[in-house]
């Protein structure tokens, strides 16, 4: 799975989460905000953004490693 594929999954999760919260538990605009980000007013959301960010950071950091794992000799 490449970077783009997983990003796509996160985006999809955002859309689904957004729709889900809109359809199933619409408890007012700020509840949806946890899925919907305010500036874009579009799917994906604070939760998804943060989770995606956490994943992306770790993924990117490992993409072109500068150091290699050196096993401890035991």
């Amino acid at each position: 799975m490449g970077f783009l594929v997983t990003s796509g999954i996160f985006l999809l999760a955002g859309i689904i989460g957004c729709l889900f919260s809109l359809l199933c538990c619409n408890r007012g605009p700020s509840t949806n905000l946890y899925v919907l980000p305010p500036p874009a007013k579009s799917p994906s959301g604070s939760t998804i953004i943060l989770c995606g960010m956490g994943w992306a950071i770790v993924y990117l950091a490992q993409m072109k490693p500068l150091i290699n794992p050196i096993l401890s000799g035991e």
Partner: protein
Amino acid sequence: MPSGGGGCLPPMDLMRSEEMQLLQVIIPTESAHLAVSNLGDLGLIQFKDLNADKSPFQRTFAAQIKRTGEMARKLRFFKDQMSKAGIQASPLQSTETPLDFDDMEIKLGELEAELIEVNANDEKLQRTYNELQEYNTVLQKAGEFFYSAQRSAAAQQTELGANQSGETSLESPLLEQDVLTDASKQVKLGSLSGLVPKEKAMAFERILFRATRGNILLRQESVDELVTDPQSGEKVSKNTFVVFYSGERAKAKILKICDAFRANRYPFPEDLSKQMHTIAEVSGKIKELKATIDMGVAHRNTILKSIASDFEHWNHVTKKEKSIYHTLNMLSVDVTKKCLVGEGWSPVFATSQVQDALQRATLESKSQVGSIFQVLNTKESPPTYFQTNKFTSAFQEIVDAYGVAKYQEANPGVFTVVTFPFLFAVMFGDWGHGICLLLATLYLIIREKKFASQKLGDIMEMMFGGRYIIMMMALFSIYTGFIYNEFFSVPFELFAKSAYACRDPSCGDATTEGLIKVRPTYPFGVDPVWHGSRSELPFLNSLKMKMSILLGVSQMNLGIMMSYFNAKFFRNNVNVWCQFVPQLLFLNSLFGYLSMLIIIKWCTGSKADLYHVMIYMFLSPTDDMGENELFPHQKYVQMLLLVIALVAVPWMLFPKPLFLKNEHEKRHQGHQYTPLEGADESVEAELGHHEESNHHEEFEFSEVFVHQLIHTIEFVLGAVSNTASYLRLWALSLAHSELSTVFYDKVLLLTLGYNNVIILAIGVVIFIFATVGVLLVMETLSAFLHALRLHWVEYQNKFYEGDGYKFAPFSFALISDEEE
């Protein structure tokens, strides 16, 4: 609302506090009580105290408050009696019929009088009963004295007869002869008997001896079981005593001493038949009394039980009445004394509800005049009211603990709901620990109803209050646990095979040169191969450090964006152009740029030294970058960014105060002549009343400028120190993973190596305790506190004023929670 939508944000219920309005209600006196009661049920209006200058005794309803106070006292008395008798008040039933307050007062008075009388009787009976019990013991013990004395006398007689001729034995009394010879002119001896407390017995004996110069005979014996003292009702250990004396004066002295020592005296008939008679009489009386007392207690219990069934209801009604009268006292009486005038804050959405409540009161009290309801215009700042639910209230509390939001200010609580647990989880990333935390908090949530109704300890209360926060924290730490690939510090190859493998089949240089990447990057989280390798720490440190910077810069940018929403909402263009824009430029031209460099470095795999780049961006921006160049023309980009950052500082500092000054002067010109420059301050002060009284504000340029200066310095220095502050994310997450590795490797794996069940069991126990105590409790606490700090300081100082005050409505739902 100043602006329709709330900046460019969609209207959100938690983002802005509820719109409030100042209401004035004029209620006819006859329906006032009912109206206030209805409003209390509604709980959406906060009355202003219009009689703040009056003392509590001068207020209109002081007498009623005294009455309710008296009733509360009676109820406390009942509660006290009930707890002494071990009777629980039955829980409040919602279907109770409404009580008339006056009837209730009379009933409470009657019950109290009855209870007091029953108690007094009971006390009297109990006292008599205890006295009789004591008498009984005295009779028994003293009877033994006399009996043994008689027996020894009889023995002496026979002995005497046997030894008549022989020499006197060693034990025989020295004065035997005299006693025998003086038997004819014997003095009549009197005796007193009773009980004396054991600790006083020695002193008692000594004093008696001294006072009578030894002319008495005292016999004491301790009573084995504890005796209930009739006076105090306490159980004490006592001695029975019998004093023999001769003469009236000695008797008087002894009586006084007995009184002084609180020795209870009881008559003791010397005659044996009389003794038997008395004993029988006393035990009969005791039995009789016992029965009476039992009857009394049963009667009292039935009274208390009937009280207990209604107690909660009465208590509730009394509290309600008390709060109603307190509220009524805040209203001012109209000059005609026919109606009460009240002012209070209420959310705009509740307008119709309030009106309805007043309407109902008018109808129910059959008042001829309706209440008058109107909205007042005021310059006062309204209270802040967020409609939170049980999920968001705990998060809102985190924000409120720092400061209550200014009226309609952007509420950091909206984002805190997600960012707070996320930052916590960055420091607490381990899905094993996350699951433990989740299970604990799920237990609290599932048994929510049960826990909510009972009283919990301090710490438990806190945990329970924050159960949803903990749940979110646990969920996010499970997620970050997967990203860090740690389950109690053990990695799993869950998502794919590790991307690394040996260079050659023999794997000879795996411990010297290291493995090489042969497969695509591990798709989700940290590659498990890093765990336990020699380069684990350098790799994870670099990763987590950069991650902290990225998250920190994002959150600070979010904070600055919030200040934009605020400025937009309050239609404050000065703040947008002279504060928000330069702040955004300054932060991003330095640290936004750094974040970008980090990402570029990751994507390109460049070996550039970011510290070096950042430092020399300031020291010698014109120098050639050399091998540190990450993208073409980087030098010029950096020079541009540096210029932007340098321009942004004076931009933040100067325009706003100047603009405000300009604005102020323009406003003044419209009204009248401005005072001459350099005019005396006293003149200005005299002219101070020139504007409407509520719009009279002195514009002090220096003050505004100093304020802006402080703000600018704070922001510029803060940009550096706050970014550095986010490194705590790295430090704590490092500490957490290292600690859990130590517990796993050095405790669990070490004991596993011994191949001994007992050692293994000990190891497991230590591991569990260390995990729960250190990682799940202490680490949770410390990560929580650090996440709290990051929100309060680094995030909220970008936009949050937090100088509002909370909406405290008059509500019956709230009073029942108080005072408990």
